């Protein structure tokens, strides 16, 4: 269940079922057209499938509502440019802003300014450094993702009785805080079963870098028991590197939950993937509309939109993949 | 060629030029710096398109739209600015654009053999066809340019100041090649500022002035010098050297070069220059004269020996030290060593003295331009517009800009390497007068020139070099041209 809260207490956090959104929203009174609102949406450069899916689902969501006029300023990994995009939204006087920042901390200043200008900001995925910068925050749980992966790895070790396991990690872009969070979560969860990461490489969320790094990783470690790859986009390349090298002695765990990954799980080529749904921005658009129209969330007893929503990071494996297929995004 | 007009932004470089060249003759082009000689031959070579006028070739009107078109017609050109590719070998440069190849694959052995044959024909079998052109001296490059022109099957060869970087010996060899060519019926267009050469090799002369033909078909051997110079400049020029002041040994020693050696280039060079004295270095191309100047200036490192100015020894290999002590070097190759081609004239002139026009680092451009203008006028640079980019000047005028820089500098010691290369007759005598005047003001001057008369006429004392060794030292009055030539050739006759 979901608990919303109107106070300024940031520690309020709960897990919402990630599958809740779908854009169908039938029979919900909130879906009835209200006054037309202008929503500004800005996200990082959609340079790989997951982020493209984030953008696409946000735009698709906006198109479901006749009363949303969406201004998109997607497409940058440069915080400075994204700041100027938000400044543009403020200049234009949009009714609400949905912001997936390249880096939460770096966009905090400008988001605060937007809030001060009376524009509600919905913060998606990467969190601002103060609670005053956003009216509502929707987070994927990066640390939780690492924890899920690590816990799952521990479980595998125990189930299969692997002695002295070699554990490898293929991270995403290493300089991003979200990668750090995922790795930290992984490390902490592994520590719970007395394990550490033996080999770690960092790719760049692209197929090519995934292949490259995985190929090198396989050379570095002649025998591996478990590999966690942070991102299913680069996973396509990682998988290809495994095939190229003819190696499959390990359990291959992915991240994000692309359609490809789900397919591999069904085909038995992948052990599991940790879900990180790209629908957050779509949720953000919905909430922004409600905020701009002064509506609440009708699914809640609570009258207003909650301050903070943290999505779950569940493990998808052969047992439950059927349930999650519809969430898989094209990478 | 008839009524050729070529306009550059701001300049009418050619303003109705006529020129006719007959088979088997050597047709000389004369004219002051900037008269339009190079421009004219670039039109003939297909490198420039004329704005007006027509070109008839063997009776038919033709249009030379590209250099290739000219070459196809049998017109080959040796340009004034050595236009070679440093990164290619000698053989490759010679056959660039018309390579010996089968299906695009270069036939290297054949190319090298043919190149070697051409170089021998020019009297330079020692230049290896496999050597990179970038490593050759200016004279070597000139030889390669000539070989390149000869590599075409030609009916007309155009030579734009080929002798500027050559010594007498080389020039004699060049003339022999020219005579062979004309004997085969090839026509030659020859440009030079050295009137003696015109007399030796030329058949007919065309004189250009300010982009117009002012005289054509003059007999090269019989027209008096005075008339030629008058037609070129519009006034009478006394082509003489300024008088020396006889004040032997009264000035103090300013520059002392002690037992200076640098690798294989030269060794044991030992001389001194007194205030007010001009010392000339004579020698063949490649005898190491430029290297000596560059070593004195600190631009090369000496392997042994020392250089001192006013009694203080300069740090080896430091240009800054030399400049600090008041030494100036007017380098040999104006284009690569001297000029910022895209910059205005005044900026080039003030380059070595820029600090003088500044206060606390901020420039006073008025002063700067005024000083530059003064020197530009005194050297008769045309056009005398200090804002003009140096690239748009003719070769001789570019040389004057380099010279102006060092005149402006007011040095204690002035090292001049081929200062009059490509400079016309009129400006030459002015340069001589200027150098002499500087000396009279107490500057110690070292002069390198491939023209022996120039060395003998201008210098007080002469050093003759052969293979990097000084073979003769003595007052300029005590030695004549033949003796110098004997010395540089034999070396032992001393």
């Amino acid at each position, binding site marked *: 269940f979901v608990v919303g809260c109107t106070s300024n207490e940031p520690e309020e956090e709960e897990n919402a079922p990630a599958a809740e959104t779908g854009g169908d929203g039938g029979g919900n009174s909130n879906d009835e057209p209200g006054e037309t609102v202008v929503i500004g949406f800005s996200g990082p450069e959609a340079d790989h499938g997951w982020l493209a899916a984030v953008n696409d689902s946000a735009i698709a969501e906006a198109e479901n509502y006749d009363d949303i006029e969406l201004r998109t300023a997607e497409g940058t990994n440069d*915080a*400075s440019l994204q700041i100027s995009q938000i400044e543009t939204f403020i200049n234009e006087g949009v009714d609400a802003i949905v912001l997936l920042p390249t880096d939460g901390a770096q966009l905090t200043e400008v988001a605060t300014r937007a809030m001060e200008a009376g524009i509600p900001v919905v913060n998606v995925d990467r969190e601002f450094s103060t609670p005053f910068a956003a009216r509502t925050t929707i987070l994927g749980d990066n640390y939780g993702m690492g924890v899920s992966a690590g816990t799952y790895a521990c479980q595998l070790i125990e189930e299969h009785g692997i002695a002295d396991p070699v554990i490898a990690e293929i991270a995403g872009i290493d300089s991003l805080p979200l990668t750090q969070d995922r790795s930290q979560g992984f490390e902490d969860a592994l520590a719970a079963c007395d394990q550490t990461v033996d080999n770690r490489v960092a790719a760049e969320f692209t197929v090519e870098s995934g292949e490259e790094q995985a190929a090198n990783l396989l050379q570095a470690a002649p025998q591996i028991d478990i590999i966690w790859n942070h991102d299913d986009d680069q996973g396509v390349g990682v998988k290809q590197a495994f095939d190229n090298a003819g190696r499959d002695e390990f359990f291959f765990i992915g991240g994000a939950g692309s359609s490809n990954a789900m397919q591999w799980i069904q085909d038995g080529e992948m052990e599991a993937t940790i879900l990180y749904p790209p629908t957050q921005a779509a949720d953000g658009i919905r909430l922004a509309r409600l905020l701009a129209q002064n509506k609440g969330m009708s699914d809640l007893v609570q009258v207003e939109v909650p301050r903070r929503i943290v999505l779950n990071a569940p493990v998808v494996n052969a047992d439950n993949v059927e349930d999650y297929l519809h969430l898989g995004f094209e990478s | 060629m008839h009524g050729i007009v070529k306009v550059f932004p701001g300049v009418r470089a050619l303003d109705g030029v006529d020129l006719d060249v007959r088979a088997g003759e050597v047709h000389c082009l004369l004219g002051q710096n900037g008269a339009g000689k190079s421009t004219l031959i670039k039109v003939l070579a297909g490198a420039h398109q004329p704005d007006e006028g027509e070109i008839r070739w063997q009776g038919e009107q033709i249009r030379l739209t590209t250099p290739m078109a000219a070459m196809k017609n049998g017109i080959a050109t040796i340009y004034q600015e050595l236009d070679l590719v440093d990164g290619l070998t000698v053989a490759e440069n010679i056959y660039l654009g018309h390579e010996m190849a089968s299906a695009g694959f270069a036939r290297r052995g054949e190319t090298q053999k043919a190149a070697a044959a051409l170089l021998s024909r020019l009297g330079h079998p020692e230049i290896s066809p496999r050597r990179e052109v970038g490593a050759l001296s200016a004279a070597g490059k000139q030889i390669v340019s000539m070989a390149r022109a000869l590599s075409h099957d030609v009916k007309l060869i155009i030579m734009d100041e080929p002798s500027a970087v050559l010594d007498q010996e080389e020039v004699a060899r060049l003339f022999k090649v020219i005579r062979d060519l004309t004997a085969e019926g090839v026509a030659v267009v020859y440009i030079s500022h050295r009137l003696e050469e015109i007399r030796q090799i030329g058949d007919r002369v065309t004189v250009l002035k300010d982009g117009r033909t002012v005289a054509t078909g003059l007999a090269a051997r019989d027209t008096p010098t005075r008339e030629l110079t008058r037609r070129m400049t519009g006034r009478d020029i006394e082509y003489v050297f300024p008088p020396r002041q006889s004040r032997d040994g009264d000035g103090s020693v300013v520059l002392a070069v002690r037992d200076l050696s640098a690798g294989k280039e030269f060794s044991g060079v030992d001389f001194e220059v007194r205030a007010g004295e001009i010392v000339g270095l004579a020698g063949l191309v490649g005898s190491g004269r430029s290297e000596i100047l560059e070593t004195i200036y600190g631009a090369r490192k000496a392997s042994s020996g020392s250089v001192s100015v006013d009694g203080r020894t300069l740090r080896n290999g430091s240009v800054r030290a030399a400049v600090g002590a008041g030494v100036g070097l007017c380098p040999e190759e104006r284009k690569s060593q001297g000029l*910022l081609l895209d910059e205005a004239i005044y900026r080039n002139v003030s380059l070595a003295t820029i600090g003088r026009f500044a206060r606390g680092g901020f420039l006073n451009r008025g002063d700067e331009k005024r000083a530059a203008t003064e020197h530009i006028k005194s050297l008769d640079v045309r056009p005398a517009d200090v804002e003009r980019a140096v690239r748009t000047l003719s070769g001789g005028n570019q040389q004057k800009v380099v010279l102006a820089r060092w005149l402006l500098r007011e040095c204690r010691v002035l090292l001049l390497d081929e200062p009059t290369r490509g400079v016309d007759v009129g400006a030459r005598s002015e340069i001589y007068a200027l150098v002499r005047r500087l000396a009279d003001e107490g500057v110690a001057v070292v002069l390198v020139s491939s023209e022996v008369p120039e060395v003998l006429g201008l210098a007080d004392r002469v050093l003759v070099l052969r293979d990097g060794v000084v073979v003769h030292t003595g007052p300029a009055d005590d030695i004549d041209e033949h003796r110098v030539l004997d010395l540089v050739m034999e070396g032992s006759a001393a």
Partner: protein
Amino acid sequence: MTSPFGRNLGLIVALLVLCAVGAATAGDRFVSTDNMLTVLRFSAVIGVVSIGMTFVIIGGGIDLSVGAIVALASVWATTLATQTMAEDTHWLIMVFVACAVGVGCGLVNGVLVAYGGMAPFIATLAMFAAARGLAEIISEKRTQIVDVRGLVDVINGEFIGIPVLIWIFAIVGAIGWVLLNRTTFGRRTIAVGGNATAARLAGIAVKRHTVLLYVVLGLACGIAAIMLTARTGTGSATHGGLYELDAIAAVVIGGTLLTGGRGTIVGTIIGVLIFTTLTNVFTLNNLDSSTQAVAKGAIIVVAVLLQQRVAVRGSDST
């Protein structure tokens, strides 16, 4: 070759055309003062770097490490230690640290190029890798939040109604212009880049001057780092991503030759404005990023070709 004025005229026309397109497609949203200030504020950081880059490129070099230096300087200026010191004394400490880091990196670049004889591309590529790596190590890849409010309030604030960032850009631009056009330093830069041999033979200390050029750029990066730090309220190893490309592009589109010896500060500034205005017009028109990229490519080509035509005309009439 055309005169600098002719070239810049072409650029101005290209910029005006771009503005006209902006006004036509986005109307008041584009021409509002607020929007103009947004564009200028966004130009400021990369503008300061580009002005420094102009000197290095005119001097015959290139610097790929500017973005990395900005990152390192911003991280160093926002470490806990620096911030604590700044809290105790004055926020100018942070400015000083950033500039010192920039100058230090520039010095290393310059020495490697001038005295180590390394190709500028390679030497600064090494710095590009090393400085960002170091920034990551120092920051432990975390974004460091600025707690010294003074810095953010002043640098990210306003002065006489105009954002301080824009003031800094304007001042750096003016200093750059004077330095290049009115001082011996500028003149020597042109000589070193135009013909290093000639400059050396004319008695200019070419190596020392080359080092100075990289130091000047390093300083510009330090200033840019502080501006970015104030603008984002953070120091981060990800700051300044792709700045090398943006800065070089602005300099080159501004008419400076990559081979050195020729260039203008005004051209560079207009070059920066062209790129930032372009982005702004795209944002206002709601273009998706792929279409933006294609349009950007096409517009660059058109702008440059247009600029050339105008430049030729402009110089014909003089």
